[in-house]
């Protein structure tokens, strides 16, 4: 296999400070590295005619993300969340243990809570609570308080390390 390793997943934001506040102060990611990209070679790679890009690699647990802030040429798209059935990356899932506290935290740090999507499951096979939020630019973040699911997760984690 000619592949060494998968790296980070990138996302484009409209306000770098606001995003760092949400992801790092709000959700506990740490900044690993900072980069700046400009010049003709990077324009070619990124398929942009004009370019002044600041990025931050952030990590929490095993997830590495790259925040991209295009000072030039600016951003496209809207800060509305996309439908979950739209082709492409759809959401980030996070395990939580107090959904009310998470919801408060999301709002305090510049995100939004989609109250209408908040759902409690209380069936024999699934007991837990799901909360859908968005980051300041409309990225869906799914918070899950689902103790039975975490057992699966822990097993996968030990398998991955073993």
């Amino acid at each position, binding site marked *: 296999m000619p592949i060494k390793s*998968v790296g980070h997943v990138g*996302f484009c934001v409209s306000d770098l400070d606001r995003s760092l506040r949400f992801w790092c102060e709000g959700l506990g990611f740490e900044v690993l590295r900072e980069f700046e990209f400009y010049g003709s070679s990077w324009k070619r790679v990124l*398929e942009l005619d004009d370019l002044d890009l600041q990025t931050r690699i952030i990590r929490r647990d095993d997830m590495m993300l790259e925040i991209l802030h295009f000072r030039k040429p600016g951003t496209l798209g809207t800060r509305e969340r996309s439908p979950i059935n739209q*082709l492409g990356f759809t959401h980030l899932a*996070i395990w*939580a243990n107090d959904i009310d506290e998470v919801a408060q935290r999301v709002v305090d740090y510049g995100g939004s809570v989609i109250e209408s999507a908040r759902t409690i499951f209380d069936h024999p096979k699934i007991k837990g609570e799901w909360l859908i939020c968005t980051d300041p630019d409309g990225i869906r973040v799914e918070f899950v308080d689902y103790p039975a699911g975490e057992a699966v997760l822990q097993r996968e984690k030990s398998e991955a390390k073993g």
Partner: protein
Amino acid sequence: MPIKMVGHIGLCVSDLDRALRFWCDGLGFEVLRGAPFYGSSWKRVMEIDDDLYLQTKMIRRDHLKLEILYFEKPGHCGTSERRPMNKLGFTHLAVWVRDIEEVAKRVVDYGGSIVESTRTIFDHPKLQGKWLICTDPDGIRVELVEYPDGESVLEHVNEK
């Protein structure tokens, strides 16, 4: 902090078998598990008004877990064209490779596309490596990087 752990990132695809072929056979992810989602509670969580029948596969490679979402009902929206890098939202997945030519061939063989015009070789004192943008069968950008020392030493290196 009420948050325990970050989990996976989801991706919506138009053809489940084609996506599994690309991500697993092509790029070396393994399938951990799969589950269908339907019924009114899940419609609420996913903000889907119409009938919902969603098949998912959780896949993993290295530290990254992805959840492939295939909406049998109500189908998907959007196009399989790659999105501009500067569009708000998720943009790309970076992959570190040993041999960019070999991976590029693999991408094509397993149903993805390569964007030839992005192929770039950096040969500066501070940065030597090869970059190539590809897409999965549904237009997700996969950034292939052949860079001997890897991510840990990537520095601010730009040309004017």
